[in-house]
């Protein structure tokens, strides 16, 4: 199971087509992967498990989201006023 995700991470080129977001507006695609990364981290660390699978979401949101947006959200997370539910 973990080697599947490691294969995918090793062969990562760019964010693949996501059928949940088939249209021109990819804003939600970026935001959803950012949320999923943090939620995945939170869920797996609570269970005491390895967080390697969460790296997929990180690679995808890093590919899709503008650097400025990511920095702003990271600052908001640190300050505790991030608008999304983690």
């Amino acid at each position, binding site marked *: 199971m973990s080697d599947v995700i490691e294969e995918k991470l090793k062969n990562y080129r760019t*964010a*693949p087509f996501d059928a949940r977001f088939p249209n*021109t*507006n990819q804003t939600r695609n970026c935001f959803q992967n950012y949320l999923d990364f943090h939620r995945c981290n939170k869920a797996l660390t609570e269970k005491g498990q390895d967080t390697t699978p969460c790296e997929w979401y990180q*690679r995808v949101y890093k590919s899709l989201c*503008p*650097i400025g947006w990511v920095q702003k959200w990271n600052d908001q997370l640190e300050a505790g006023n991030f608008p999304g539910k983690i």
Partner: protein
Amino acid sequence: MAHPTQLGFQDAASPVMEELLHFHDHALMIVFMISTLVLYIIVAMVTTKLTNKYILDSQEIEIIWTVLPALILILIALPSLRILYLMDEINDPHLTIKAIGHQWYWSYEYTDYEELGFDSYMVPTQDLASGQFRLLDTDHRMVVPIESPIRMLISAEDVLHSWAVPSLGVKMDAVPGRLNQAAFIASRPGVFYGQCSEICGANQSFMPIVVEAVPLEHFEKWSSLMLEDA
């Protein structure tokens, strides 16, 4: 790039633009033929000495000038829809590049592997080097590998802009807070120019776009160099 006294599109640098170009030629030829026919008929009508005051109807010509236009419209619609669906195909991109519009420059981000980001300002007219194009060349070009499907994600930091490169057949609005996706493949190496296509203030005409398509090895060398410089 565009040149003086240009009438048609710029040479296509992507498969989609090629299709659009050929479709445009096809539709325009039909339009020219119809216009010529109509103009000829008008001139013929106006200059003839023949008259007939007693024509009431004519089934044959009515049928012809109903069926023929319908056929012509189908001949235009079929390639048009073909291209429409072709442009809508799900593609599997090799690379994602973000283009973000600011007043008044573009910034490009390549973040699939490392975090590479840089700004692209127009070269002011007084600083042009010999051979550079006025109002078109920029200090940093957006370099892409040839023959790779590229996913562009276009956004803006302040007001509306629009990222357009005619020879690649791409134009996409840059909206603050929104990420718009466009895709293209650069079929051949070359330098392709575009300009900001949405009203964004005093210097809309002075924030051009330059895409440089190069073989993959050159792209890899360029991105390593850019990362070092950053």
